[in-house]
């Protein structure tokens, strides 16, 4: 059991990060913490993908001078996917931050329930 855990350590960390981030994003009332949760969740997924892209004792997917056989390099595709994922994550974080700034400017609160309460009092 322990050896199995040890050999899956990266992925286990990744899914733990995902779970914590997911819960934060879902249940915390503070908008900033929600955004932090989202970043954690995404990082978990990137770690997951990147760790499956790694194969022991192989080179990074950049052609080295004297190595040409294909079994010498790791799979380059997960790296590409992670890159794409990171950029998408950055954009979404930016949108969320913009929204949060806007709400805070107007209602002076980061607590989403409190904001809802204030909007209700303000009337439609």
């Amino acid at each position, binding site marked *: 059991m322990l050896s199995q855990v040890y050999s899956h350590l990266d992925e286990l960390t990744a899914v733990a990060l*995902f779970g914590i981030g997911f819960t934060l994003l*879902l249940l915390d009332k503070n908008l900033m913490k929600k955004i932090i949760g989202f970043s954690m969740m995404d990082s978990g*997924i990137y770690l997951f993908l990147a760790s499956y892209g790694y194969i022991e004792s192989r080179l990074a997917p950049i052609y080295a001078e004297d190595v040409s056989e294909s079994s010498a390099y790791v799979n380059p595709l997960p790296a590409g996917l992670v890159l794409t994922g990171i950029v998408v994550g950055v954009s*979404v974080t930016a949108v969320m931050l913009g929204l949060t700034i806007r709400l805070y400017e107007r209602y002076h609160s980061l607590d989403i329930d409190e904001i809802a309460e204030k909007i209700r009092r303000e009337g439609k």
Partner: protein
Amino acid sequence: MMTMTWWQNFPPFMIVAPLMCAAVCSVLKAKAARAVMLVLSALECCCMGVLLYFTQTRNLSFTFAMGEIGAPFGNELRVGAVEALVGLLFSLVMFLSLLGGWKQLEDDIAPNRMNLYGAVFCLLTAAMTAMTFTNDLFTAYVFIEISTIAACALILSRNMGWNMLAAARYMIMNLLGSGLFLLGLSMLYCLTGHLLFPQLGAAVRALAAENRYDMPLYLSFLLMTMGVAIKSALYPFHTWLPGAYSTSTAASSAILSSVVSKMYIFLLVKVFLRAAGVDVFTRRIEDVLFLYAFVGVIMGSVHAIRQRHMMRMIAYSSVAQIGYIFLGIALGTQAGFAAAVFHILAHSSAKSMLFLAGNRLQSAADGHDTFPALQGAAKKAPLAAFAFLIGALSLVGVPLLGGFASKVYLSQAAVALGGWRMVLVLADLLISTALNVGYLLRCALRLYRPTEKEETEHNPKTKDAPFAFAMGVLIVMNLGLGVFGGPVLRWIQQGIAIFM
């Protein structure tokens, strides 16, 4: 390999052209930006129509490699009759929503922001087309995120507190959904080593035959399904929906309710049929989905009955309707999937009409959408009230209208399957039809009931040709889906048969 015929070159340009329009739109003036939006969505409709004509008459599907190397190494698009049909409907609804909400668009969006709105609209068009056509799971994820942000921008088009809160809630729930989807697809990729649907499907089937990685495969499909369910507001995950749909400008809410949430469901249909294979893993997921959909159909209607505002009522009725679509998917047979796709079409055309007409009625009632305020609104906006009535009748399921046909096909699919699912589906349909009559017709009748105090000053009747045109086409679409339901369903079935 042969080269493509002329019409087979359409799909990539139907995605690249909106992307370029978006870039151009962002530097244009308001009027030019709106013209670009309109022309682009009209062109998109025409291209979809051409694709549908050729794929349907020749009963074929083709793949388009995005680059020299196609599957399994590069991105690919795949177009068949189902994709073209669904794409045609989506682009038509987007075009008509834009036309129908043309006036409100002018009022709600400041001229110096119209260019940004246009850019967002164009990007949403691109995302819609890409998600309908894509043959690649990861491309689907990228365009899911584009449509999520685009939808957030659409909700924000009116600049009020409610909109911001609705947008925040929308973003939060949708980020959860796309996070689950991304994790599911990463797991699937790590297990099979493929991202394109055909190869993915083959690998999954091979693994399932050997009984390897049973639990991870199941979990990855479950994660993706849950992600899509959250993003398309299946019942327990619907909390973001009413605020998002009911507060934004008319064109935005029509597009959000009838295009954005439906394209995720269509993606899920593709994942189930092409990546999972009908019987391999979906069986167990379908039980879960069935439960949610069953509860959702009833609870959506119950929530809708309890609303005191018309727009919120229409929004909640979407929850029930999405329950129907998932009910069709959860039957797990080809007939069930066909019924689900048909319901996507029927619901999109009815719901966009309801939102557009409802918005118009609301402005006829001086911006109030409580039921007492709406009483007698039919006098002030006869066309909108008539369209609302047709949409309501279609959702209730009156013969000759789209909603009726889709309910019939759903129950046929259930009867063909038999067993406890049949009983539950039929019971569900009966209960929800009764509830639909309760809230939709009550509202429609209220519109036609004359007000007690005679109003002397009539609002000067404004002629709004784009709105009238949009309503006319949408009414015709609803009637068409009802009357020619049989042929349309056969197209869908043919398309689904060559899906795999």
